[in-house]
């Protein structure tokens, strides 16, 4: 069967190519086609395409396909010789390329048919075919079942096509916009294939524009058609495609888009707090999981190829021995490289993968503050933290932008900013169509705010740290380089090497924009080149706590300058008493705002200020802090303060507490009972209500 079928197919295809070479052959080919019952039966046709295209690109050697097919069908018994003969026989028309084909063939024979199939398919996806339209037509034929109609029709089509092709080579697509539209109204399926083809052709032309362009056609025309086709074929919206075209060279673009159609491999991270990678791997293998270590760059990662059990519900998983985590999520933490005993902030921590990785690198020492703006997502953070046996974490639910005011003086900060998600289209295809310019800029704006407040939360004087890692799962320049560049201008930070020896360098120039040259040190990761989610990582080092007084600029300036003033007094060393100092640093931010702050607070602080600036809590937030202190400290202060050893730092803290309590009282005086109620504990509230009731009854 195979053999006979093959020739037919070839003949069908052949005509296109041969038509170009030897124009007289068309008539004969048409006959072949009509004869062929053979034609359609073959599933192999798809694999064969890429090969064909290749040939076309190099030199037209048409016979590869045939040979392969034959191999497949006949299996191993046929020798090269046989193939040759047959081919020759079938075709008669064979031309020059045969020798080369055989070489390829012999290569192919070493592979199993399935492997070959896979290979071909891969090629199909990756390689760009220069196939002309007649191929598409063939496919049309394949798809539709009615042989007769198709035969005649396709034959006719082919004739038309042939003539066209003979005149014009690859670029003829552009001639057809009108026809195209009509086509689009036709079958979708057909359309997609032809569009795919056209994309490839188009890109080929664009890559060799001077030689392959059609006379009189502008590059823009090609581009606009390309955009349109890409949007249709990969179902992106116009905006995103344009962005991507700007971002990637054309040859990479299709790779990227294709990579977004495939899921990334499942990866897990060993929880070294509870087990070792080797043990874990062994345990999982015993459960029927097929895995491998993840690249050289990670000692804790494992790639899961396939698994007979749900990988998210094994006893090992529940016992916290590993975490399901994308490979790209390892990178920012590795870049951050937290040290033991440090105070680390994870500004947007959900669902806790990076947080727990940080904890694991710190061996459960120090303190991690895991923040996230979304209370619902924090549940997963808590779950994961406890499951993985992380005990050094404080989980809180602030908006990241408030942060230096809540708490400052961190040794390291990880900011995994919320973003448009253009790097993880494979995970969430909705991104393809849901984003537009406004979305990007909105998230870019938020990212700038977050980054500035993250920078302000870092303590530049930290003996071990002073680092900040900014990362997003977006690949847009607006959300990455631009944001970092902005921060470089606004704060005393510099980029440092991220410590990741792979990945692509960040852009220093993009379209009309020019970024700071050190942005080369940031790293970009792409699905098609690294087989992980699209990701951006930049590591910043804060070299001074002073905030440069910025010229009139963004809105953040108004807010930011106040908070950041959190400058540590150089005299006070973090090592002296890490915890207390840090606690305090958060508040000091408000210092500068004294004018804003209400009078009482301001005064009180005044006494203490001389001691150390940082210790004086006040500012716009002062009121809140006071409240907070009142609540939280109330209980502890009484008991704890008494119990605990009082070293200097504590003393200062207690002072703060006293102060704050005092403030609170004052505040209460001023306020109506209703307001005061809000800051009361349950018991007090109950008492109060009882009293009120009594009064009422009386």
């Amino acid at each position, binding site marked *: 069967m195979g053999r006979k079928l093959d020739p037919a197919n070839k003949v069908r295809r052949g005509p296109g190519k041969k038509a170009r070479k030897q124009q007289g052959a068309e008539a004969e080919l048409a006959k072949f086609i009509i004869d062929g019952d053979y034609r359609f039966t073959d599933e192999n046709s798809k694999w064969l395409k890429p090969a064909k295209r290749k040939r076309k690109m190099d030199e037209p050697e048409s016979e590869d396909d045939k040979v392969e097919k034959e191999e497949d069908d006949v299996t191993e018994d046929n020798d090269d010789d046989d193939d040759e003969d047959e081919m020759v026989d079938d075709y008669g028309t064979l031309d020059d390329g045969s020798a080369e084909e055989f070489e390829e063939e012999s290569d192919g024979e070493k592979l199993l048919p399935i492997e070959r199939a896979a290979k071909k398919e891969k090629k199909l996806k990756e390689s760009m075919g220069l196939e002309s339209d007649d191929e598409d037509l063939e496919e049309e034929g394949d798809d539709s079942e009615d042989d007769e109609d198709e035969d005649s029709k396709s034959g006719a089509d082919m004739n038309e096509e042939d003539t066209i092709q003979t005149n014009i080579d690859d670029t003829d697509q552009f001639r057809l916009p009108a026809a195209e539209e009509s086509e689009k109204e036709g079958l979708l399926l057909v359309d997609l294939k032809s569009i795919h083809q056209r994309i490839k052709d188009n890109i080929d032309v664009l890559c060799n524009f001077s030689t392959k362009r059609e006379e009189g056609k502008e590059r823009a025309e090609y581009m606009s058609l390309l955009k349109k086709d890409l949007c249709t074929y990969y179902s992106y919206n116009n905006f995103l495609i344009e962005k991507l075209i700007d971002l990637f060279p054309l040859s990479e673009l299709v790779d990227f888009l294709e990579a977004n159609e495939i899921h990334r491999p499942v990866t897990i991270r060993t929880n070294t707090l509870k087990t070792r990678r080797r043990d874990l791997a062994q345990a999982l293998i015993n459960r029927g999981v097929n895995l491998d270590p993840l690249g050289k760059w990670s000692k804790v990662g494992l790639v899961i190829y396939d698994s007979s059990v749900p990988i998210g519900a094994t*006893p090992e998983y*529940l016992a916290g021995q590993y975490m399901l985590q994308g490979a790209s999520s390892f990178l920012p933490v590795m870049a951050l490289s937290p040290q033991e005993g440090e*105070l680390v902030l994870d500004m947007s921590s959900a669902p806790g993968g990076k947080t727990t990785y940080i904890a694991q690198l710190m061996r459960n020492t120090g303190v991690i503050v895991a923040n996230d703006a979304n209370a619902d997502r924090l*549940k997963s953070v808590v779950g994961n933290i406890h*499951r993985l*046996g992380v005990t*050094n974490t404080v989980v*809180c639910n602030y908006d990241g932008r408030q942060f230096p005011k809540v708490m400052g003086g961190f040794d390291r900060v990880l900011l995994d900013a919320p973003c448009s998600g253009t790097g993880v289209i494979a995970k969430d295809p909705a991104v393809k169509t849901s984003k537009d310019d406004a979305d990007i800029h909105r998230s870019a704006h938020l990212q700038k705010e977050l980054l500035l407040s993250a920078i302000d939360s870092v303590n530049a004087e930290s003996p071990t740290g002073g680092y900040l890692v900014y990362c997003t799962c977006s690949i847009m320049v607006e959300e990455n380089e631009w944001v970092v560049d902005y921060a470089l201008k606004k704060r005393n930070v510099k980029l440092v090497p991220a410590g990741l020896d792979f990945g692509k360098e960040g852009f220093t120039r993009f379209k009309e924009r020019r970024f700071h040259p050190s942005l080369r040190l940031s790293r970009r990761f792409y699905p098609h080149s690294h087989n992980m989610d699209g990701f951006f990582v930049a590591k910043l080092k804060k070299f001074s706590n002073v905030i440069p007084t910025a010229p009139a600029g963004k809105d953040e300036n108004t807010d930011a300058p106040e908070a950041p003033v959190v400058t540590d007094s150089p005299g006070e060393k973090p090592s002296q008493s890490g915890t207390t100092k840090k606690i305090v640093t958060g508040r000091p931010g408000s210092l500068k705002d004294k004018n804003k702050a209400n009078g009482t607070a301001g005064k009180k602080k005044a006494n203490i200020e001389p001691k150390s600036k940082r210790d004086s809590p006040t500012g716009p937030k002062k009121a809140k802090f006071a409240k907070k202190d009142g609540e939280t400290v109330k209980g*502890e202060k009484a008991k704890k303060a008494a119990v605990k050893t009082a070293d200097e730092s504590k003393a200062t803290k207690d002072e703060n507490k006293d102060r704050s309590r005092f403030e609170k009282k004052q505040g209460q005086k001023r306020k109506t009972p209703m307001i005061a109620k809000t800051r009361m504990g349950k018991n007090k509230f109950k008492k109060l209500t009882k009293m009120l009731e009594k009064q009422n009854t009386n």
Partner: protein
Amino acid sequence: MRPLTDEETKTMFEKLSKYIGENIKLLVDRPDGTYCFRLHSDRVYYMSERILKLATNISRDKLVSVGTCFGKFTKTNKFRLHITALDFLAPYAKFKVWVKPGAEQSFLYGNHVLKSGLGRITENTMQYQGVVVYSMADVPLVCCHTLKGNIRMFHQADVGEFIRNEDTLT
């Protein structure tokens, strides 16, 4: 966040002592720093002093979790142990039970431990004694009470809760 009242402390320690007996003082007096229990939104958290201090920076309504959650007080003021405490209970547990690999999966879905699933058990385990259940690979899985009869261990908390009850952990 506040320290536990005496009553609360008593209730909780009673519960804990079922599992770890007098080892409970090892939880409080640790060589590597001061650790303490704090109550926050009805839940008991166990944390080091350093974390405690930092956590005071965070207002109560914004604070989700500190250190390790041991369990929670019910509305009737009973103490209910959470699986999150397992990390601290397991190393100190006085009585342990190992279950066979075939049975371990079912415990993780919240079932009781049956007699048939028992692999090994600490000697002299009394009735109604709190035990920690391990898999044969020494992975702590479940906190249970021993019982008589066919059901050997009455299930109290298991690591499957990390997934099943994620919402209530905090």
